């Protein structure tokens, strides 16, 4: 990059560029020295990772550093496969929350770093371009943390054929619908629902009149009013609020980003709209968002991918879900978030695959190990059986409510486990009004 800037300042004795280059070299050198012992060249196996560390999706990638540290610690003694000990190197790159950047770094990982396995996480903006690069370059790839429909159909996947090199584990839209319905069925309402769906990939999928919420809700006896797709970063929800008031909606649902939900939620109060249940996907995942809403965060409901109460254990570290989040909270002094479990599971599965691959030098052999995975991870069992499609396996999804505890802190309480009975319920749904 520095070379491309024009050299107007080259009249100085030492140009700034030289200084910057030298500085960067000095910073980078220890990293290179640490990971490349000269005698172990042939026994090195590389995992490339892509995730968002900066930009609007940075919240999803927040636990990256912690998880990488943890995994590097476990792998410091190497990984044994076929009677040999292999050094495992993890090269992580930032997608900067952009799809094109994700594709660019994935291709760097494949072509210049020559990684043996690619893993990626967090939203279609990361998983899809990375998986596409891997498919084209015939490199095995495992992804997570993106509902499977945007992952599979967003990449123009054909359920009959599927993909060859790329595999994914997470839940899907049908699970969201099932858990939302189970949540609403647990309390008495007039079953009139107001829908808030933005004009983005998630909003269009959720609000789709054929495959989204509308037909499923109608079948379950709910009356959904969908005013139409609004644009992201909306500043005014008056027209939606007026419409919901007119139909006397007691439930509000949708898929929103946190700023949009916050705008809607203050305006609803200002304009006298008081629903009984508010169940919103995406916006209400992170504790920081709920904290930012103050007292008005109490009682909001959301889908739940993973919590410390989930009854699963990491087969890599032996930690329970609670032990993993405790370790995270201790190490970072930050509240736990749902993506942590999936980021840990991603490396669990990757390492399991590398342990089982017959020939680590052969991509086909690694791919074969992926397809024969039968693994109990911290987010549940991972095994690609061809359901719902060849390249996707699903993890359990439940729903629950943010409830304020006596100490003023919010706790995410699982209030319904109908779609996944193996996950224990933590409390009862409380109505907002």
């Amino acid at each position, binding site marked *: 990059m520095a070379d491309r800037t024009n050299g107007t300042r080259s009249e100085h004795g030492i140009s700034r560029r030289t200084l910057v280059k030298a500085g960067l070299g000095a910073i980078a050198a220890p990293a290179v020295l640490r990971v490349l012992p000269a005698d172990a060249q042939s026994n090195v196996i590389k995992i490339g990772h892509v995730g968002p560390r*900066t*930009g*609007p*999706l*940075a*919240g999803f990638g*927040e636990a990256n550093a912690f998880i990488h540290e943890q995994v590097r610690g476990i792998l410091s003694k190497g990984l044994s496969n076929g009677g040999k000990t292999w050094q495992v190197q993890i090269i992580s790159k930032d997608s900067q*929350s952009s799809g094109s950047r994700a594709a660019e770094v994935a291709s760097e990982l494949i072509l210049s770093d020559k990684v043996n396995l690619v893993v990626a996480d967090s939203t279609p903006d990361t998983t899809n371009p990375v998986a596409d690069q891997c498919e084209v370059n015939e490199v095995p790839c495992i992804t997570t943390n993106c509902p499977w429909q945007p992952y599979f159909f967003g990449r123009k996947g054909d359920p009959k054929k599927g993909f060859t090199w790329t595999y994914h584990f997470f839940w899907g839209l049908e699970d969201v619908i099932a858990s939302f319905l189970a949540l609403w069925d647990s309390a008495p309402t007039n079953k009139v629902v107001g829908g808030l769906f933005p*004009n983005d990939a998630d909003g269009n999928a959720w609000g789709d009149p054929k495959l989204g919420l509308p037909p499923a809700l109608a079948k379950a006896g709910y009356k959904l009013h969908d*005013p*139409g*797709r*609004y*644009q*992201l*970063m*909306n*500043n*005014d929800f*008056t*027209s*939606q609020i*007026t419409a919901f008031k007119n139909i006397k909606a007691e439930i509000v649902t949708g898929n929103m980003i*946190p*700023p*949009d*939900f*916050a*705008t809607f939620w*203050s*305006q609803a*109060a*200002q*304009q*006298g709209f008081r629903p009984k249940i508010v169940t919103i996907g995406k916006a209400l995942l*992170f504790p*920081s*968002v709920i904290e*930012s*809403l*103050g007292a*008005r965060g109490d009682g909001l409901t959301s889908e739940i991918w993973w919590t410390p109460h989930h009854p699963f254990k990491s087969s890599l570290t032996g930690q329970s879900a609670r032990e993993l989040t405790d370790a995270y909270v201790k190490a970072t002094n*930050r509240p736990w978030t749902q993506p942590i479990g999936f980021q840990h599971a991603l490396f669990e599965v990757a390492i399991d695959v590398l342990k089982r691959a017959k020939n680590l030098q052969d991509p086909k052999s690694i791919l074969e190990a992926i397809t024969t995975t039968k693994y109990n991870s911290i987010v549940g069992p991972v095994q690609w059986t061809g359901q719902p499609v060849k390249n996707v396996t699903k993890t359990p999804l439940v729903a629950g409510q943010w409830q304020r505890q006596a100490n003023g802190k919010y706790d995410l309480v699982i209030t319904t486990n109908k779609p996944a009975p193996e996950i224990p319920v933590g409390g009862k749904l409380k109505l907002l009004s």
Partner: protein
Amino acid sequence: MVPLMEWVNIILQGALLGGLYAMFAAGLSLIFGVMRLVNIAHGDLIVLAAYLSLLATDAFGLGPMTSLLVVVPLMAVIGYTLQRGILNQTLGPDLLPPLLVTFGLSIIIQNGLLELFTADSRRLQAGAVEVASLHVADGLSIGVLPLLQFVTAIAVIAVLQLVFYRTALGRAFRATSDDQDVAQLMGLDNRHVFGLAMALSLAVVAIAGIFLAVRTNFDPAIGPARLIFGFEAVIIGGLGSMWGTLAGGIILGVAQAIGAQLDPGWQLLAGHIAFLIILAIKPDGLFPKVQ
């Protein structure tokens, strides 16, 4: 048919939102008017002000509104320093260098905030006033906060107008705006005048940032999305006209509200269309002061 009262409500809420857009726009309009600088980092500076207010409320236990007492002067100082330290170096006959530098600044601010405050979605909590409202008639409630925001916008615009047309500082602003070389011959130090203009601009940014942060959540990356409405309000109102900027903000807010009522998908589009129509009919905006 939608009842009349609903339309009144929709248009009124849109007009109140216009106040916020006008505050986004006022600072932009001011510096473009004085020094022909298009500040791409304006949206990020709004977010920076929001974070400064967050720090002030956390550290001193101030409410968001009282934190203005700290944040407004602080942002003004940042503005003056920024202008004297960096932006003055880039000003010249070519519009491109300041554009690129503020673009870079935008990226630096976003990533700096991400490092310092993480990607958490934050909000300033103003307590009961956030959800308080005045019940005007059946089906018509006006939120206290949007109303306060609108009144503040009018006050800010009025003060800027006074400064511009009734004070020596305003005369200096207008003189440099008209002809930089002649202004210098008359003994004005352009670098200082520009610094003061940026200070004033960022003082307004601070107020806008705090209202935005009470109204909705913010995180380090949301700045640029807020910038476009500011630009549009400036163009609709006409460059250099403060009251025009307010009118531009209101027109934008009302157009969006009407669009949303027809179909939520048309909300932003309606605003952009209103902007394009005005640009087509009156390319200088409604009340142009600067050519």
